[in-house]
């Protein structure tokens, strides 16, 4: 604490100023609307908490909320499973090949989500190419149903979300000092051990970033679930129906707030587990020392 009082103040001021652009953007475009939605959610006909009671007790709404988080979780898991190897290969490409690789990852963005979701609907149909190929080759006898049970929805959403997983992980992998896996190799670790003991733990923060982006974005998908969701209704569809067709804004708002709160809970738990594992890690390091 060698810094004088004045110095601390100016440090605080500087931090505040750095935060100002974010605050200027978020206050009118995120916090204020959120406040309006929050207020709306308490203005229902069944009293202040009436809509929340409904959200919690209605079995249909509970299933819809479960579907939303289940689909988002599955999509995050499969995006990671597919995205990590892609990022790993891309991180090792050099020069022009790296540029081409990244270009290819972003190529699907040239078509809108509506068109890509429609395309999946056709691809995964009972007479679509996927089923025709599998039935034709004798792999299966009956076409698999993809689009009525949410399986096709998760396939299409994973396809859309993989690039959002690849990019942060790619950045994370590129930031890892190439000498670290080499050092592990010198110490006798085989490539698999090098990956598990050095590369994977060092890329964990970027995995967390990618998973966060994919999970939160997946919670809000609308077009793809409306085309491919089948009986797996997700909350965005329910909110739209309440807001547009039934004009029940209090219930639509309460649903939005509940999803937000549940998301915060999920991330608080994630953060907690990170802190805990870091503590365990440092405790172990201490014991070793």
């Amino acid at each position, binding site marked *: 604490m060698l810094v004088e009082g004045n110095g601390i103040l100016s440090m605080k001021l500087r931090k505040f100023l750095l935060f100002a652009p974010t605050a200027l953007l978020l206050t009118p475009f995120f916090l204020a609307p959120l406040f309006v939605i929050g207020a709306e959610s308490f203005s229902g006909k069944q009293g202040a908490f009436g809509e929340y009671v409904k959200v919690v007790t*209605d*079995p*249909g709404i509970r*299933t*819809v909320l479960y*579907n939303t988080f289940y689909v988002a979780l599955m999509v995050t898991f499969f995006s990671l499973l597919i995205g990590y190897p892609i990022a790993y290969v891309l991180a090792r490409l050099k020069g022009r090949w790296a540029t081409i690789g990244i270009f290819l990852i972003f190529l699907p963005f040239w078509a809108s989500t509506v068109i890509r979701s*429609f395309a999946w*609907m*056709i691809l995964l*149909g*009972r*007479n*679509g190419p996927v089923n025709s190929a599998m039935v034709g080759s004798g792999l299966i006898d009956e076409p698999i149903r993809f*689009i*009525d049970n949410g399986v096709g929805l998760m396939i299409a959403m994973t396809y859309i979300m993989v690039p959002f997983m690849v990019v942060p992980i790619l950045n994370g992998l590129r930031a890892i000092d190439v000498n670290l896996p080499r050092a592990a190799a010198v110490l006798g670790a085989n490539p698999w051990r090098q990956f598990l003991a050095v590369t994977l733990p060092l890329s964990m923060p970027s995995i967390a970033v990618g998973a966060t982006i994919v999970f939160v974005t997946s919670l809000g998908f609308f077009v793809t679930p*409306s*085309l491919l*969701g*089948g*009986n*797996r*209704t997700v909350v965005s*569809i*329910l909110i739209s*129906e309440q*807001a*547009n*067709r*039934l*004009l*029940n*804004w209090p219930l639509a708002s309460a649903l939005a707030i509940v999803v937000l709160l549940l998301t915060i809970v999920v991330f608080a738990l994630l953060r907690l587990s990170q802190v805990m594992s870091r503590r365990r890690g440092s405790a172990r390091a201490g014991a070793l020392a």
Partner: protein
Amino acid sequence: MKNVRNGLSRRSVLKLGAGSAAVSLLGMPAIGRAQTTSLSVANGGGALGDAFKAACFDTFEKKTGIKIISAPYIEGARLKAMVEAGAVDIDVADTDAAEAAPLAVEGLLEEIDYSVVPKDGLIEGSASKYWTACYIAGSVLSWNTEAAEKNGHPKTWQEFFDPSVKGRRTLWKNAAQTMEVAALGAGQPADKLYPLDLDRAFAMLDGIRSSITWWSSGAQSAQLLASNEADYGMCWNGRVDPIKQQGGPIDYTFEHALHMPGIWSLPKGGRNRDAAMQFVAHCMDPEVQAEFSRRIPYGPTATKAFDLLTAEERARMPSAPENSKTAVAINGDYWLEKGAEVYERFNTWVVSQ
């Protein structure tokens, strides 16, 4: 935006003259109205928008000098937000009657002035307090013709909901309309359809649950049938008829169809109320409606319009007298009163396994 603004500034002087001339011809006080040089009309766009433009917008502009600016479809939530914020930039909106019902109850729509809009000669149920129907769409039993050649197809909603009839069915993932056809499937008579017998209707849905593929947009329903993802289903006639006309493997019947009025309504607080009312009146003209129906297979509400259409053209219109003998008009008041409850039950049914 830029084009619109340029268009206005360039022609505003001319328009002002033409507009006030038109208004004075109609015998209305010119003050305040002469300023209306354009109306913003929200509509579904696509083939519907093209038909509106050719039949309604261009002819209105020619008659009155008031330019119609076509705006994207406005959902209920946006209309409510717009009216409550006092920033009404849509003068007339095309929606369906079921969507307009809750808007009317919340006082978000202007009352239609039937001293300006002619209500005589319109099909019964077309002239509501807060909207006037300008066309009738049909929700019809449709099927893939290739699948039907092999296995036949249901001819009534009772057959459609008979679990022993094989095939994949596609239905709208929406309580309104789907519950109506389910109730018809349960044998509820068409003339005593409301109130819907929900227990029997849901029992019908239970019976065919595993063979339902849901659709959520008109384009999707047509795609599902054309690709034979589903063998038969309930679709909007405006979506399946064009595919049939182009020789696609789809056919449908107007027997036991549901009639849904397509309507004009005025968001409350619009600046151009009087010109907007004139526009609605213009759209009730039999010639305008006949021209509209030639361009998209939605039927007129002005009965005289049928005289202007050929038998071949009438065959594609849900509201033509020969096509509407067994049809049922969707009851907007029922959905207004019971909507929340029935939607909740329907949504719960869909997600429960």
